[in-house]
Structures are given as C-alpha cells and as structure tokens.
C-alpha cells in the first residue's frame, strides 16, 4: 500500500516536473526567432558587444547592488546567494513562476522584491526604478545563453490560461490582440519596421526608442499604447499572466539580457 502511494506520489511529482517544452508549441522550433533576429546588423552587433552595449551600464550597477547590504537585517543579495555567476545561472529562465510561500505568480522583479521584504527587511524597489532594472538585468544576465523554460502546470495553469486569453484579447481603438501582429503577421512590415514574434528573452532591454533600459512590462505598455488600449499599472496580475504565456511561447529561445531593441 505504502509502495503504491509512493509510486503515485512519484508519478504526480513527475507530472508536476514536466517541463513546458513537453507541451505543444505556439511557434514551431524551426521558425522560432528572437527579437534580435529582426534588428538591423548595427543594433545586433551593439547587443553582442559586451563593452558598447549600453545595457551594460545597468548590469554594472546591478553588480554593485548585489553586494550592497540593505534593510533592517543589513543583508545583501550576496549574503545568501553568494556569487551570482554560479547561484543565479539559469534562474531567470524559469520566471515568471509560482512563489511557494504565497502561492502567487511572480516575475523576476517580483521575486527580487520579495527577497527584499521577506529576507532583508528592506523596502521593495519601485517598479521601473533604475535600481530594480539594474538588479533584475544583473540577475537575468547570469542566465545569458540559457533557454527559457517555465512551468505552466499545477498552480501556474490558471495563470497560463489567463495569459493566453489576454494574448488573444482584442483591445483598444485599433481592436487588435497581441496575436494579430506577433502571431499572424510577424516578419511583415509595419511602416519602416519588421514585426517581430514578440518574445521576452532580451528583457530588461535597452530600447532605442526609450534611450534607456526598460522592463518587459514597459514594453507591453508600449504595445498597449500602440493599439490605443488602456495601459494597466506596473505589476498588475494581468501582465504577470501574459508574461508567463510569453515566456512559454518563447520556450527554447536563449536569454539575451541586456538585449538591445529598436
């Protein structure tokens, strides 16, 4: 009896541990293209230049923040996680994910702020602040070259479904969903630009239009503004669900943070 229960438990665990890659794909692997593939050669080479990539300024700031003690407990990220190069390798590829303690979906920004409030006794960084962008980019940078691979089963399932719904929801005065551009028409021209597949693997990224670093949510807001839809506030659950769907949709793409985008 006990053995049978153990076998069931193992089977359940195996199901839970089933990576997203085993699921059906949104875009066939052979057609999957990172946002950098839609850039001109100049921006692509800027992204790949570890010195000239302007996002590296934020990475350097993030490296300093990593070992800067903060909060009532006078702890830094490094106090627990030590060297980010080893401890954070591959971590960003699994976000957004369910936070075991609260059962809520969090992205990398949210996870960092949970660490600050729970473990360091520090104030969370404001969304889209220079500090949060820097530390998020620094953590994500440690996973450069690691393929995105998020869990969409179990507690994440409802978020994933909501994310897909949000992806396909027509919005704004243009009455367009994400899918209308990034699924049905990628590779075609929109004025002077080529429509990308809309993947999140370069974020936080340095965007030429912004002339600065920005989060994935800022990018989503830019798309919402583009179709003349209402922009939700930063950190909204709807963004998180959508981020999870986007990460699944891009599964297998390598993390490029800090990406350089148009």
């Amino acid at each position, binding site marked *: 009896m006990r053995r049978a229960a153990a076998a069931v438990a193992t089977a359940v665990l195996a199901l839970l541990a089933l990576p997203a890659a085993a699921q059906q794909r949104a875009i066939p692997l052979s057609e999957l293209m990172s946002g950098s593939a839609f850039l001109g050669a100049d921006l692509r080479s800027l992204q790949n230049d570890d*010195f*000239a990539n*302007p996002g*590296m*300024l934020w990475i*350097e*700031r993030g490296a300093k923040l990593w070992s800067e003690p903060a909060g009532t407990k006078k702890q830094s990220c490094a106090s627990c996680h030590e060297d980010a190069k080893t401890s954070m390798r591959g971590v960003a590829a699994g976000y957004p994910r369910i936070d075991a303690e609260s059962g809520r979906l969090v992205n990398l920004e949210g996870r960092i702020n949970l660490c600050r409030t729970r473990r360091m006794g520090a104030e969370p960084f404001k969304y889209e602040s220079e500090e949060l962008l820097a530390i998020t980019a620094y953590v994500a940078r440690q996973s450069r070259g690691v393929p995105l691979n998020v869990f969409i089963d179990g507690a994440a399932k409802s978020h994933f479904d909501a994310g897909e719904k949000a992806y396909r929801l027509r919005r704004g005065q243009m009455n367009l969903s994400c899918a209308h551009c990034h699924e049905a028409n990628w590779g075609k021209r929109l004025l002077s630009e080529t429509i990308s597949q809309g993947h999140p693997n370069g974020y936080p990224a340095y965007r*030429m239009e912004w*002339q*600065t670093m920005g989060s994935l949510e800022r990018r989503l807001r830019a798309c919402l503004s583009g179709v003349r839809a209402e922009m939700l506030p930063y950190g909204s659950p709807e963004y998180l669900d959508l981020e999870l769907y986007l990460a699944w949709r891009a599964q297998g793409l390598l993390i490029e943070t800090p990406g350089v985008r148009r």
Partner: protein
Amino acid sequence: MAARIQVPASTKRGEVVEIRLLIQHPMETGYRRDDVGHLIKRNVITLLSCRYDGVEVFRADLSSGIAANPYLQFYTVAGKSGELELYWIDDEGKQGSERQAIKVT
C-alpha cells in the same frame, strides 16, 4: 555619472591604441516637452577631452542630437608609458572623469 572605459593595459611603442568610452548620460536635447507641455531644459555633455601623459590627444564638442548614453571610440599612438585621463562636462556643470594607465614597452 557612471562610465565604462576600455583601453589596452599594455602595448608596444608606436602601436595604434583604441580607446572606447561609454558614459551614462540622458543627453536631453532641449527640444522635448514633459507631460504637461513644459520644455525640458537641455542637458548634454558639451565637452569631452582625453589627455595622454598630460597632452590632449582627443577632444569632442558634443551637442543635441547625440543619443543618450554616448559611446565614443577613438585612437591614439602609444608614445611612452603614462596615464590616460578622460574628462567631460555637461550643461549642468556636472563633471565626469576616468583614468587608466597604459604601459608601453
């Protein structure tokens, strides 16, 4: 003002040395308006100078129209071992500098 500088630590006499510099700066053009329509005051790096062993080898007068976080790449010829000093100043009078020694053999 955060900045990154890349200069070879050592080189041979007479060799061409590549100097790369990336400065974190908004390079506010002075033509943009904020959310309520007020003109945002111009704030760009106006002068950038590079001295090598005390002698100016490169100078740039920057202005509106140069992107934020400017990246500069220029060259000089290695004479003797010495310090490379980069200095810049913006419209608000904020100054930045970076220095690095070059060893010439």
